[in-house]
Each structure stands twice: as C-alpha cells, then as structure tokens.
C-alpha cells in the first residue's frame, strides 16, 4: 500500500507526508516527530523547493517503518540500520510486519482477495500430487468441478484467469464501480474534471497530493463513514495498486 499512495516520483510537503503516514499507521504523526527523525538520521533529509521541505516516496517508507517498529518496542538504535536500506528492502521490511504496520502494507481487502488464488494454487499442487500418487483418484476433477457450481464471483475470477491475479480484486468492488474506474483510467491523466457527455453525470474532484486527483461521479454514493467506508477505500486502493502495476489489467 505504501507504494500505491505514493508513486516513486511523488513529491509533497510536510503536511501531506504527515497525512499519508498517519493514514497508513492509524495514528497521528506530528511534524516534530518527522524533524526529530530527520535529525537522528532515521529518515533522509528532505529536498527543498524554495523555502519549504519536499518529501517523497522514500521518506514515507522510512517514516512508516520507524513508527511501526518503535511501537513494537524496538529502540531507535535498533531501527536505524534498517532505515538505510534501499526502497525495495524498506518495502519488504514493511511487508513482513505483522500488526499496524502490516495494515499499511496488507489491508484485509488485499488479503481477502488472495484467499481464492491461494486455494487455487493449493488445488493445482494437489492435482499434481494426486496424479503422482495414483491413477485411481478422480478427486482433482470433482474438486475442480465444485468451483464451477457456485456463483458469479467464481466465474468472474475464472474468466479473468491466472495471468491477472490482481483482477480478482474486482470481486471486492461492486461491478458498476469497478468498471467505471476502469473506463476512466485511460483518460484520467488528461481529464481536468467538470463536465462529461451526460448532463446528469457531474464529477467531484478531490486533490490528494500535488498532481494527484481523484474524480468521483456525483451519482456514486459513498459508503457511510466507518468500517464499510474503510473497506471501500481499501478496495479502491488495491485496485489503484493493480492499475499502477499492470495498466492492462
């Protein structure tokens, strides 16, 4: 999730960094904390744009990692060597965390959508094991057949196929919404908001960070604040991650 909310070339001010890290960690981060960590070398010195500090992807990774580990009781001196790792390794460290830090890298919506993939993998390894063991069992066939017995989620997933594992996250999104996100993707870079073909479809614009906007059709009703909205946002984030990774998906 960390890489999603900040593409590697993202730049933003202190406030944006605090906001992004705060959301990932589920705790409020103060600007003092960030400055303290910077003077202690736990996060890199920010860049400068005029008189204000500019932060990027790496700063966010470092900040989230330090906070997540510190909350687990590690001392800053134990954390310091980890902060010097390169971005990929920082991300790996974050992914390995179990806990609030892990909520940043593996929200439950992501974990959920992978359950089916996981079981399919087990299923296929079962197939080969069963084949090796005996010719008499027709288990794999019957087990596989059972998957097709059930509802639309499975058939959707099987239509999407293995080549696009993240596509199964579609199951987490309502169909109309996901296809809308999809349809808007190619033009999202150039769209400046405002009108569209239908008079009824007006758009709301949200600026998340300099250069990053989200457009939501006014006819789309947001889930009420609380767990359902959290889940909805997570699924959108997961979808966004997929689009960044694999624009054809």
């Amino acid at each position, binding site marked *: 999730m960390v890489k999603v909310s900040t593409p590697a070339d993202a730049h933003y001010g202190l406030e944006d960094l605090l906001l992004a890290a705060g959301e990932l960690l589920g705790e409020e981060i103060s600007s003092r904390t960030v400055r303290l960590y910077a003077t202690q070398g736990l996060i890199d010195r920010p860049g400068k744009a005029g008189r204000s500090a500019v932060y990027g992807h790496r700063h966010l990774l470092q900040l989230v990692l330090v906070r997540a580990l510190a909350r687990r009781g590690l001392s800053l001196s134990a954390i310091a060597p980890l902060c010097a790792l390169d971005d990929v390794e920082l991300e790996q460290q974050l992914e390995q965390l179990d806990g609030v830090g892990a909520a940043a890298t593996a929200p439950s919506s992501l974990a959920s959508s992978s359950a089916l993939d996981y079981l399919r993998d087990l299923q296929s390894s079962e197939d080969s094991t069963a084949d090796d063991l005996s010719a008499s*069992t027709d288990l794999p066939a019957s087990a596989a057949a059972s998957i097709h017995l059930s509802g639309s989620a499975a058939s959707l997933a099987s239509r999407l196929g293995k080549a696009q594992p993240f596509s199964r996250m579609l199951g987490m999104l309502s169909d109309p919404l996901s296809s809308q996100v999809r349809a808007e993707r190619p033009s999202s870079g150039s769209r400046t908001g405002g009108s569209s073909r239908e008079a009824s479809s007006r758009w709301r614009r949200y600026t998340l960070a300099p250069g990053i906007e989200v457009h939501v059709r006014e006819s789309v009703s947001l889930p009420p604040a609380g767990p359902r909205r959290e889940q909805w946002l997570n699924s959108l984030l997961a979808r966004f991650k997929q689009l960044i990774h694999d624009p054809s998906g």
Partner: protein
Amino acid sequence: MTLPHLRFRPLRPAVASDGPSRLDLLLTITTPSAPTVPDHGRQQRPPLNLALVIDRSGSMSGTKLSYARKAARFLAGELTSRDRLAIVTFDNDVKVVVPSTPVADPQPFINAINTIHSGSCTALFDGWLVGATQVAEHLDPTHMNRVLLLSDGQANEGLTDHAQIAAKVAGLTRRGISTSAFGLGVDFDEDLMGAMAAAGDGTLAHIETPSQLADLYASELQGLATTCGRRVSVGLRARHGATVLDLLNDLKSTSAGNHQLPNLRAGQEINVGLQLELPAWSPNQEILSVRLAWDAPGNSERLSLVEVLRLPVLASEDLDQLDTDAEVAEQLALLAANRERRRVIEELDRGDHSTASTSLMHMRDSLMSMPGSVTISRELDLLNQKLLLLKSDPKLSRKRLRRESLRSNTTVWESNDDQA
C-alpha cells in the same frame, strides 16, 4: 466496540534491587462481555460465511452420520438470510452437497443434508480445500469466514502429512478464513485435528458421542457471534537487561517474532504465563512492554494495545518474605500442567506407559499441594481420569491429553458434561 484489556499479575509484587531476581508473571487478557440487549444479540453479530465439511467415510456410517446430519440441519436452522452456508462431504471423493448460498430458507439445505450417505476412504485435506474454496468465493472481511471440519477418521487419501496440512491451513488463516476442527468418536486423528484448529485460528473439539454435535454447533455459533478479535498476536519486549526465560503457553510464533493467541471472545479471559530474569533493578524502570494486536470483524485495520510493566523494588531477603498471589500461582500451575501433558504424550508414543503414569502422578501430587480451589479439584479430576484410562483405554487417554494440552494456546470446546 468491545476492546480487550491487559493486566500484569506478578506472582510476587516486587523485584530485587540488590541482585538478580526471577519474576513469575501472568498476563491476563480480558475481553469484556458485550452489553446484553435481549433479542438483539442475533442481529448484532457479524454475518457468517461458513462451509460445513463432513466426513462421510465408511466409518461414519450409522449413528455418527445420522447425528452429523441432524446437527447440520440444526446449523442450517440457526442461520439467517444474512449468513451463507456451504455443505461439502468427503470420502475418497469430494462432493459439494450445497454450494455456498445465503440461508434464506433452511429447507433446501435440510433436503440436501438428508441425501448424505456414507462412502469409503477419508480424503480429509481435499474436503477441507473444497469447503474453504466455497467460503473464499464469498469472502467478506466484515463477516466471520470459517470452515467447520467434522471427521471421525485419519486422513488416508490425498495429502496426509500433518505439518503440511497445518501449514496450508495457516496460509488460509492469514488470508481471512479460519478453520475449526471437530473430531468425532475414538478413531479420529487428534494430532491432526489439533494442528488444524491451532493453525486455523479456530476451535478444536473432541466429541466422544455424536449426540453432543448439536451442542457443539450451538457453541461454535455463539463463539463466532462473540468473537471480537481474530489473528491475535502478542509481542513481548523485555527491557533494560531483563530477559524472558519462558513462555509457559508454548504459543506458536508469528513471522514477525510475536506469538499467536486464540481468538478474543466477549466475556472470556486468556492467561499467558511468563518467567523473566532480571538483573538488580532500579525503581520505576520499565521491565516489560507487551503489545497485543488483532483483527476486529468489520475493521479493516489491525487494532493493538500496549501495556508496560513496572514493579516496586525490594532487597532480596524482603522479596522472599512476600506472599505469593494464590490465583496467579494456580493459573501458572494449570499452564505448566498443560505443558506436562505434552511430555506424557511423548512418553506414550515411545511406548513407555509406566513413565507416562509416573509423570501423571507427579503432576497430580504437585497440584494436590496447592490450595484446593474448585479449579484445582477439577484439574485433579481430569488427571485422575487420564491415569485410570491409561490402563483401560490408553488411546482415549492420549486423545484427551492432547485436547487438554492445547488449552494453553487454542480455543478448545468443552462440553457441559465435561464441566459437570
């Protein structure tokens, strides 16, 4: 939302200032009961997404399968249109009797359940896999997603290795689907069922008579309805040169070096026993910080709480004069007895019944020397039973020992008959 709280309960309420000391400590995690609103309990619980996986191998024929059908009908009757249920059977073949469907009307489920008849071998893992897939297809993180596996036998078809099966079950737990394992009768594989329930973050049950099945399902539904925390982990950080010598519960480690606890259920308590070693201690110095983390149903982020332990310091000789906390001593003794049971099982597996017997007698004697509370006398009863069974039915004795040993780190169902 119901939040757990964490208490430190030291055996002696101080540590030594003038030299090293040992600290026996109980962490008690209490999840308060949800406020009782009559008749609303059912609406308040999260929706359930369940797959019931039933062994229909040859050994299940007759009474067992008839009770299994009866209990499945009961389960379908207890669910509502907010819940989903799939029913899967396995022998050497796996069959989806009812694919995952909302339980708007239990009748179609009941009709399908009545068609379940016994077959031949026990492809337990494949049955689990198909049941799990049924749940996964409709997985919703705000629901309770669980596979209920009922078996009376040993896995003898397909994947049968315990460690491998447990690892696969654990992989699914991390992805939001838990597994409960219910062993029925006297021939099921208690090690496998225990490993699956522990890895599955679910309930382990041993049912000796099939008539207990309906009670078990009722309790499982109740448990799912009152679960406030899943994938619970506890992280321990000893400070300032203190070290954790022992964790009596023998909890499984998580990938991040924390320890896995059973689910948090409203109105229940989890006790974790610790032994620490401390150098000469200064006043107000932190001894230990404990971080509890869990997934809450309907909450997309992991929740956590941190508590820090500090204790007064005393000269060593004054420390020895302090009274111990009787309740803490009792809980620590129970945890130690659960661990001892694992050793007895190893002795039994070596065929060394006389050593196993002696070990059980030692356990009994040491519990006899403790203040005789109700809890202690119940534990003594359990140990006496095992001693007697060791002569008459060692296989059953081992089964029960295994179940009791897992009480330290897994949700273990106890029937009302056991408690009486």
